[in-house]
């Protein structure tokens, strides 16, 4: 079976595309990006700020059980078109990568199917590749609790 989520990172380029089809109406898919409580659930991070409007700011933060901050990211929303498009910047705090630009396009396929097309542009091809190689580890910090659980389970085996 073909994977639902596709990532296209062409050699030598400084951007990448993530596409995915959802069995959801486009309004619900879009809502999952707008409602802080919902974002927190699927991104596995705390939403400190999410101003879903043009020139609005956002800030996500993940801490461990002791309250130590593991991951922090922030950015600005440049364009916000309800159920259609979000253009925003993304900056991982404490990481040596410069800000990246993200275009999120939401498309209706049918009444209960929709598509998300995400284009991420990095400062350079090198930064894109480094981000892909080691940035996953940072993003995984988001899922720290989940990772810890996996660790415990794997030790039980």
């Amino acid at each position, binding site marked *: 079976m073909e*994977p639902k989520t596709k990532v296209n990172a062409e050699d030598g380029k400084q951007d990448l595309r993530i596409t995915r089809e959802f069995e959801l*109406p486009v309004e*619900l898919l879009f809502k999952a990006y707008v409602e802080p409580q919902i974002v927190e659930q699927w991104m596995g991070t705390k939403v400190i700020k999410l101003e879903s409007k043009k020139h609005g700011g956002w800030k996500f933060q993940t801490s461990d059980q002791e309250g130590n901050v593991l991951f922090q990211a922030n950015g600005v929303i440049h364009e916000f078109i309800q159920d259609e498009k979000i253009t925003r910047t993304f900056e991982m705090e404490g990481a040596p*990568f410069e800000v990246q630009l993200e275009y999120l396009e939401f498309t209706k396929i049918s009444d209960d199917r929709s598509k998300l097309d995400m284009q991420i542009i990095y400062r350079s091809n090198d930064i894109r590749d480094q981000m*892909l190689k*080691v*940035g996953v580890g940072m993003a*995984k*910090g988001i*899922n720290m609790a989940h990772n810890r659980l996996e660790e415990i389970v794997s030790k039980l085996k």
Partner: protein
Amino acid sequence: MNLRRDVFQAIADPTRRMILLLVASQAMTAGAIAANFNSARPTVSKHLQILTECELLEQQQRGREIYYHLNPEKMKEIADFVEPFRKLWEERFDKLESIMKNYKSKK
């Protein structure tokens, strides 16, 4: 303990990936790297040792200090680096889909 180290084993660990990320832009001493973690210094040293053994990190003596920097050649060996990234998003999107399906039925 298995002494054979390969790059994939090395990058499987979140702390080690974080270390690679830190030294990606500039060479750092063990102390400067350890300052970014809450783990005990020997734990960070152990991670540095593993990363150095598999040649993802290189040591460079500058005066009294040893600096760690990324070995870009070795990093290139991580050929299919897109797959873990894809999986990360697949997991997130699967979650999003199931949350919103419940949301829909609750309405």
